[in-house]
């Protein structure tokens, strides 16, 4: 039962990671990355590493995508002006 859960979560991680690679628009990519962070957090929790899971949840699905989105906004603003 537990092994099946691990396999399911691993597949979810693989699907989200593939989605993040296949998505070419950086702004959308940040959103997919956030979902990937969430699935990784679930994986770490299932593998009994809740400390790492929490860190992944906070950094991987919130701070990193936010920083990417802000960077995209800055770059696009610059592009629009020139």
């Amino acid at each position, binding site marked *: 039962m537990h092994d099946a859960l691990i396999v399911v979560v691993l597949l979810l991680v693989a699907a989200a990671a593939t989605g993040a690679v296949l998505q070419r628009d950086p702004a959308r990519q940040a959103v997919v990355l956030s979902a990937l962070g969430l699935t990784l957090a679930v994986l770490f929790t299932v593998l009994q590493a809740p*400390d790492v899971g*929490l860190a992944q949840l*906070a950094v991987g699905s919130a701070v990193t995508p*936010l920083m990417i989105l*802000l960077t995209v906004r800055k770059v696009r603003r610059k592009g629009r002006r020139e």
Partner: protein
Amino acid sequence: MTRRLRLWVLTAGLLATAALYVAACTDLPAFGGSWHPYGDRAVRAALQQHTANAVSSVNFDQRAFDTLGEETVLFSSVLGTVVLLRRTRGEKRVAPGPAEVPAALRRYGLLVLPVTLLIGLYVIAHGQLSPGGGFQGGVVVATSLHLLYIAVDYKALERIRPLGLFELADGTGEAAYILLGAAGLIAGSAYLANTLPLGTFNTLSSGGTVPLLNAAVGVEVTSAVVVLLAHFLGQALEIESEDGAKDGGREA
């Protein structure tokens, strides 16, 4: 180097890495087994030190020096960001105008903000007892403040985020960790040694120096993430070149 030579070097490197990786993997214990030599020792040491969260015992007691390194990595990378993302000559700050926020988003954001803040503080305070600690809780606290930017606007965020104070707190958290380590030296044993009374197992004040180091990391990480995001937000929303046209508002 010609393209061909580069490819050969790449191939050799990849093959060597693959060989080493396979060799390392063949000696790994099987997945999910019951043989955990390091884990057993770490948990035994954690129990000896009255620290209920064995991971925090590793982070702030058994391997406290590694954590000093990690904290310093974050500190110096934020310092680098502050230097790189400052307003340079030929750039000006333009305050972004107020933005329309859907009523539902505003309600939801203002409801979730205090809850998230409380969860973050709880995670920091209970680092020595339950999963989490200064690092995880610090990031949660820092992100919770930014819900105000989503729910209201940039101006509201700026009001609850005195940047100077957070920069000061960032340095204070880092310094507190280093000085707490020196306290171990003064008390007679080694740098970052756990010299305080260990307290009663599974209470807030247990673990000796663990809750103190954990709190120092909590302060440092909270402020570091706030300062980091402040400079990203400043670049994305405020700073533009002198001759540039203003583009007010923000994207949803």
